[in-house]
Structure formats: C-alpha cells, structure tokens
C-alpha cells in the first residue's frame, strides 16, 4: 500500500473541512472496504481521516420533522448493532434481514452504516489494477463488458460500465424510503432521498453516488412504514453465507386483508444501484395478493432486463426471486 498519513478527527466539522481541503484524503470508518482496496492499490488516498470517534453513532426514534415516528441510524453505528437494535427488529425487520444476509459476523461488527453505503463494487476487473476499468481509471475501458460478466448488471448499465452495487443493506433501504443525511465543510446539512443517493453509471462510472466532495454521511433516516409484518429480504447466492448476491429482493407489502394497498420491491445484484422494481410495484397496486399476480408483476419487471453474455440466468432467477420474496412477505417470512 502506498504511504499515507493517518489523521484522527473529533468533530464532523473538522472531518469535512479536512477532506474538502485535502483533495486526496478519505474517511476511514470500519476500514473493511477501504483498507482492502488500498492493499490492492485500487484506492490511493494519501491521507486517511479516522472518523470512528465522531458522535454520529446512535440509533434513535425520530421525534420531529418529516420522518417523525421513524428511526435515525447514526452513520457510524456498526452493522451488527443496527441489525439487532430493538427499534429496527420491531419496526424495520426487513433491514435486519438484509444486513444479516451480508458479509460475515466479524465484518458486520466492524462495518459502519455510512461505510456500507459507500462500499465499492466487487467487479473483479475493478479490483485488479492490471485490468482495464473505467470506474477505476476513467477512459481505460471496461474489462467486464466482453469478459466474465456473470456477476454483472442486467438493468441500467451503460457502455462504460456494467458493474453492480454490492450492498445488501442498501436494497432494504431503497424499499424503506430512507433518506441520507449529509454534512459539508460549511456546516450545512443536506438530505438525499435514498433512491437518489446511488446513481447509474452513464458516462461517469467513476462516480458511485451523488455525494459531493467533502460531504460526510451523518445519519440515515427511516420513516415509519406499514409493512413491517409483511416484508422479506431474499438473497440468492453461490454459497449460503459470505457471498455477494447473484440476485436479491427486498419486498414489503402493505395489505388490506388480502388486497395489496402498496407493494415495495427493490432488487440487488442487478444494477449500479439498488433497483426499485417500479413496474412490478405499479402492477401490484390494488391487486389481490395471489401467486398469479406476483408472477405477472415479476415477469413485467424482469422482461425489461438487458442481460449480458454470462448473466442471462439473472432474468429468470430475478423473476423467481421476486415471486418467492413476495410469497415470503405474505407469510411473514415462513413458508
């Protein structure tokens, strides 16, 4: 790894100020992603600002503002405590399931909520500095496009990049209509709707999300929802744990008897950001919660996919996963 300076910051203000004045400085949270990438020479900051002591680590009920009655997750609380927090287990069990489907217990103990949203793609060409990659070195080409793209996107990719965003937590957050709260060096706060936080690659795959330089995530807010008892996170992967998703589905059903008032569905492992299945959601609105309706909605969504050479299976797998996740959500997780 390249030599770098290690700095310890105590306030949000000093963290954002330092990062905005030192263009090649980066935040260090749990370190589970950035340190690996530095060892591989993919990330090359010359300064790491350790933010683990910032006081943005609590998980609490929101008592005012637009998300009143919801829960605020500190950017620096770790994935394990978030998943197991009473407020989350009770009100947002979908998030618990999604976080626990990711990584391993040891990594979740270190990984922070902010770091989770900022983790980078697992595209193997991105990780190998001897391969071309537009995300790592803009203009160098996309190694995966004509390569082994079994793990890559089927929605929303561009000719520049076909990477998928790897987080499980984020797929649940997309369904939970979360907002990301960020602070900048001028002491200003900004809120970003979760579905606008990550972006599609377009012409600029080097940008994973819409965070501006110097901005720090301080919290993630979850509004109250009406589908806590009818939600499910399904992750399909090559081994039972410690593997990234081939396809994952976060599903929440707001029901009136057997009628769907509103369905919320997001897919992971298929795009450069958590993929809200808006077409499927639209089709399910007001319909009866039946297998046939689930099937029709899943087909409608997945038929828009644009698979690549080695990931055609994701289209069929996605259909099946949507149906099963909705089924499981109906049955409150057991079937």
């Amino acid at each position, binding site marked *: *790894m*390249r*030599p770098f300076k290690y700095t310890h910051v105590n306030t949000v203000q000093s963290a954002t100020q330092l990062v905005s004045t030192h263009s090649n400085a980066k935040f260090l949270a749990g370190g589970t992603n950035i340190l690996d990438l530095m*060892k*591989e*020479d993919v990330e090359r900051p010359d300064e790491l600002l350790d933010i683990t002591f910032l006081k943005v680590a609590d998980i609490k009920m929101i008592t005012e503002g637009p998300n009143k009655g919801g829960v605020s997750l500190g950017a620096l609380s770790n994935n394990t405590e978030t998943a197991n927090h009473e407020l989350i287990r009770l009100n947002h069990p979908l998030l618990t399931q999604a976080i626990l489907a990711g990584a*391993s217990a040891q990594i979740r103990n270190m990984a922070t909520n902010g770091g989770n949203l900022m983790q980078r793609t*697992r595209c*193997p*060409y991105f*990780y*190998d*500095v*001897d*391969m071309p990659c537009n995300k790592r070195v803009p203009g160098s080409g996309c*190694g995966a496009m*004509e*390569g*082994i793209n*079994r793990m890559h996107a089927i929605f929303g990719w561009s000719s520049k990049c076909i990477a998928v965003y790897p987080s499980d937590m984020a797929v649940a957050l997309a369904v939970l209509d979360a907002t990301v709260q960020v602070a900048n060096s001028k002491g200003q706060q900004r809120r970003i709707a979760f579905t606008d936080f990550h972006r599609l690659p377009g012409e600029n795959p080097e940008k994973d999300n819409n965070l501006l330089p110097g901005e720090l995530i301080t919290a993630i807010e979850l509004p109250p929802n009406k589908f806590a008892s009818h939600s499910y996170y*399904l992750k*399909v*992967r*090559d*081994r*039972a*744990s*410690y*593997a*990234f998703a*081939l396809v994952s589905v976060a599903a929440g059903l707001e029901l009136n008897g057997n009628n769907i008032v509103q369905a919320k569905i997001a897919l992971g492992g298929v795009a450069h950001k958590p993929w809200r299945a808006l077409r499927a959601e639209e089709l399910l609105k007001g319909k009866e919660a039946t297998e046939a309706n689930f099937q029709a909605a899943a087909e409608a969504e997945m038929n828009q996919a644009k698979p690549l050479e080695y990931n055609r*299976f994701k289209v*069929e*797998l996605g259909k*099946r*996963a949507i*149906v*099963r996740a909705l089924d499981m959500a109906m049955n409150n997780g057991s*079937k």
Partner: protein
Amino acid sequence: MEANKLTGTPVDRIDGLLKVTGKATYATDYPVKNMAYAYLFKSTIAAGTITKIDSTEALKVPGVLSVITHLNAPKLNEKGGLRGGALLQGPDIEFYGQHIGIVVAETFEQARHASRLVKVEYHKSEAKVDFEKLKKDAVPSKNEDLKRGDVDAVFNQADFAIDELYATPIEHHHPMEPHATIAVWEGEKVTLYNGSQIINGAQSSAANTLNIKSENVRIVSPHIGGGFGSKGGQWANLVLAAVAAKMISRPVHLALSRQQMFNSVGLRQHNDQRIRLAADKDGKLLALAHQTTTHCAINDEFVEPCGDCSKVMYEVPNSLISYRVIPMNIIIPTYTRGPGKSTGSFALESAIDELAFKLKMDPIDFRLKNEPAKDPSNGKPWSSRKLVECLKEGAKAFGWDKRSAQPGVTQLGDYLIGYGVACGTYPARQRDSSAIIKLIRTGNKVKAIVEQAAADLGTGTYTILTQTAADGLGLPISQVQVTIGDSDLPPAAGSVGSVGAASYANAVNEACEKITNELLAKSGKQFFVRPTAAQLMLSEGIDAFQTRMDAKSPEGADAYSAHSFNANFAEVWVNRSTGMTTVKRFLAVTAAGKILNPKTARSQIIGGNIWGIGMALTEESIIDPRWGNFITRSLADYHVPANLDIGDMETIFIRENDIIPNKMGIKGIGEVGIVGVAAAVANAIFNATGKRIRHLPITPDKLI
C-alpha cells in the same frame, strides 16, 4: 510390544493447545533478527518475453534494499526439482502471473508498494489459455492408455449404455497459511523456514536448485497451515527467499499474498472426462471407457490420473482408460487432495448413477452386482476390500430405504429433497522412513523423545506418533515428546498421497520394538513377561539410551492390491425457486485399515468431505481467456464452503484388520475422504430435482 492401549483411542490433538493459543510456529512466525521483507511481482501477460524492466522508481522508495529480476538474479538449476519454474532465470513468460522479480525492503509494506512502481515492458506472443478452443488439439499424455477387451464393439451392442461428458473446473488448494519462507544464511549453510509436506524433498530440491549440497540446506517446518498437495512439491518462493537473502546478506522473509496464490503454487486442472458405460439388462457391467482431456504447463506435463478409480472399482471385462493433454500458458497443475480420484470419481460415480437409473436399479444394488473378486486392472488379490460393508452399513445408518427411486417427488415446502450415494477408493502404501528414539531416565521417571523428519499439516501426525510411541515404549502420553518437521532429523516420507501415517507410525513402532530388544539384550536377563522399554530403563538403572530404525515397507506387499474404500451418502435440499442447494446431511463410511485416532481421523474425513461438497457446489477458478489471468482472485470470489453451507456430518469407520500393506495395518485417510463426495452430492441433486448436472460446480443458475 505391549497390547495397544492408546492407539485406536480418541486422544486429544497434542498440538491443539499450541494452535488455539497462537503459539504454534508457522513459516513466518520466527523472530529472526535483522530480517528484510521481500515481495514478488508478476507478469501481466501469459506468453512472450520481457523486453525492459525499469526499477528506478521502485529503488527510490524509502527502505527499499534491492530489486531482483532475471537481469541480476544468480544462475540457478531450473531442473533442481522445484515445481512451476518462475525462478527469474530469463525473460521468457510462460503464464500470466509468473514471478518476474522481487523487491526487498525493510518492511513488507515498503516492498509491496515499491513492487508496483517497477515498469515492465513485454513483447507479447499469442497465449494458449482457452481450453474450450484448444481441446480438439489435445495430444497423448505420458500417462499410458490402458486397454482391456474391446470397449467400442461391446458398447455399440449393449442393451443399456450411457456416453456423457463430465467437466470439473480449475480449483485451488488455498490452505489457510499462504506459502511463505524465511531464509537465513550462515556461511555456506542456509536455513529455510517453510511449510513443507515433504521435508527431505524440500531440502533436496532447494539444494539442487541453488547448486549447493543437501547438507547445507536445513528445512524447518514443525507446523504447516494446510497444504492439500500444494506444499508437497515446492515452488519458487522457497529458493527465491534464499537468493534474496544471499544477495542482500540479511535474512529475508518472503510471503505470498492470497491473490498471488492463484498463480504461484499450482492448481487442480480443468478436466473434461468422457465416460462410456454399458451393461446388460441384469445390470452386469460390460464396458467402461474413461477418457480424460486436460491441460498442463506449456513446457512441462502434469496430469491428474482421473481414470484411477475406474481401474479398480468395478468388475468389467472391457475397459479403456486414456489421457489427452494440451500444453497451455497456465501454471503447471499439481497434486490436489485426492489427485485424480476426487475428480475421476465424480465422472465415474455420476455415470454409474445414471446407468443404474436407466436400468431401474437401486444404485447400491447396481454396485454390489459388479463387485470384483480381485483387482480388475492387474489381477492381483485385494489385501482387503470392504466396499460392500461400507455400502450396506451406510445404507442402514443413513436410512437409504426412505429414498424415492423416482426423482423430483420428495418435497417439503419450497424444497426438493434427494438422496445420493457414490463410492471412492485410494491406494494404501508405506514408504521408507526412519526414526530415532531417545530414552532418558530421571529418578524413577522415563521420558522418550521421538525424532523423525515427518510433517504435520494439521492432520494429526504429532498425536498419532505420540500414541504409537507411548504404546511401544510403555509410557504415558505426557512422557513422550515427538519432534518432527526438521530436515536435521532422520529422513522420512512425505505427508502426501495418504502415505504419511503408515510410513511414520510403522517406523516409530519398529523403532520402539528395536529399542526394547536392545535394552533386553543389554540387561542380559531372561524375562517371563516381556518388559517394556520404560520398565527396562528403570530396572536396569540406565540413564540414557537411544536407537535408530530405518523402516521399509514389508516385502511381498506388492503382490496384493491394497486400497481404502468408502461409500458417501448425501441428503440435499434444493430450493425450487432459487436453485440454492444445501447438503443437510452427509455420511461417509470408510474402510481404511487401522484407525489410529478416531478423533483426528474423523476430522480428516470430514475435512475431505467438506472440500468435496465445495467441489460439488461452489469452488471454481475462472480465467479470462483474453489475458489468461484468473478473475477469481480472493476468497470472496473463490468460494470454499462457509459454515452455513455444511449440515450434519457423520463418519463411520468399518473395522479392518489388514496387515498386508504394513505391519500396523494402516491404510491412510488423508485423500480418500474427498473421493466420491462430489458425485454423491450431484447424484442427490438428480434425485431431488431430476436434473443431471455434469459440469461442476452446481451453482444456483444451473438448477433453475
């Protein structure tokens, strides 16, 4: 020798405490003074030549001591016995990731950083890396074809036949401890701390490669963090550490990163195996052809013997075993757990299951019907063969009678449930090994030191040798100290090919007998009941006594065919919507001669089983044919099974008392545990889903 008291009992692992407290010393755990750190850098093309190496920037990095490439490396003997070349002897590149240089620095981080600043230019030539495109050009291999009768003629007229291709991907060993070496020179002599499955082999190959005498090389390897064949033959790291240490006149630490493990220390090759099987309507096998096409290094051949199981498993009058190979720009393959047998049994035992299904026969009955009275490949009698017992005991213990013969009908909720069976075998051999026993008396206590250049990969060598010596000398475990893993000790076989336990324990056992006889002679007395060596030390008041035994495998063993056998049973649950498979239960029934320690033996067997499950479901190394590089470069991409992938594991050993292969009746269990496992899982998946997957690993996409 006194009646066995300790061998055969589940004594706790002697080195267990050391390991769980972090005190066991692996290759890089030695606090050597004044040590420098080396980091390898590798080619980024698969074929061609290096035209320029510019180390200017690397040498400017603070702490960097030296950059070693083919331009300044000393001349080595490339035929000295190391595997895989890559010794910095010239500009030619034979595979992607070949070592092309070393940076040596004060710290590991400095060395790694500087290694990335070395600029290398190449003249690239066309690389042979695409197996699918090249396989039509495969040529006969050094493994001889074996023909009996006329397979083609019989096959074409048989009532029941199958002709299928089974493919297994490139796999990697990935021991927990990546390969690493510390080299320390003192004058003409070099000490190499290096995990070695064959201590004396590592010594001679290092010496030959360095063009120095064997006695000037010492290998220290008391603990090995796994190897699975990749630390059997040694690789360039062993000698390059010594080269670097010599060049900078300081001890050097050279460790591979996990990413570097993919193209530094061999691999299990991709195999295409075509199986043709024919039987009559009563289920008697008529013909078996097992034809393997595979790849080897561009200038050196290694071919896994995939047809080995097919030679001995079943009675079949017409048989053909053949190998075709393509030299490719990929690192040379090497021995990998159950070499040939684990991959070969996937093909053979899947095919047997397929044919049994066609015949509407239970796959166990089908196998029983074709049980050979003697080794069909050479006509020799079996020293013992308990495959029938393995199958029958296993069927009973597993509840095989609950299996539906019709696939796809057993369901629970969203899961399809299936049972599968498959068998395996591995040869049993003893190799020459020596041992020294030293007895020391202090007051009324006798202590024994057992010395042998044996290896313990984490398998239990320390433990079984302690048990063997304790029994042979009449001492408690606490009074026996086993010292192994050092080339200064009496030479011994490697812990490879399932020969370790038989070779080591028989040598120690014979040394115990010898020392007892010598003490008896020394006493000059006659005893009514033969005393133990420990008793003689006390009764004769001897302070110290020692002997050395050079043990050989018993004469006449060659007249027999000696093998371990097993039967593996798997219950799988396949999720109907997602195609994800779980092995809920796995049972391995093994007949492997005398089991010295049921506890370490069980660990060996389930370790093999788990790798076999990984082989069936998850493990695969993938090459991008445009460059010839592995795109699976870490343990996040190369999926060994995680805890959650493994269900109930059960192990049964069939009692066997077979002293033909060696006096103690040990057959070895290191390899056989993985043989037959992948087929048992694949057969269970067929039983669950009706889908026959012939291309491993069986990932969810193949089942939807």
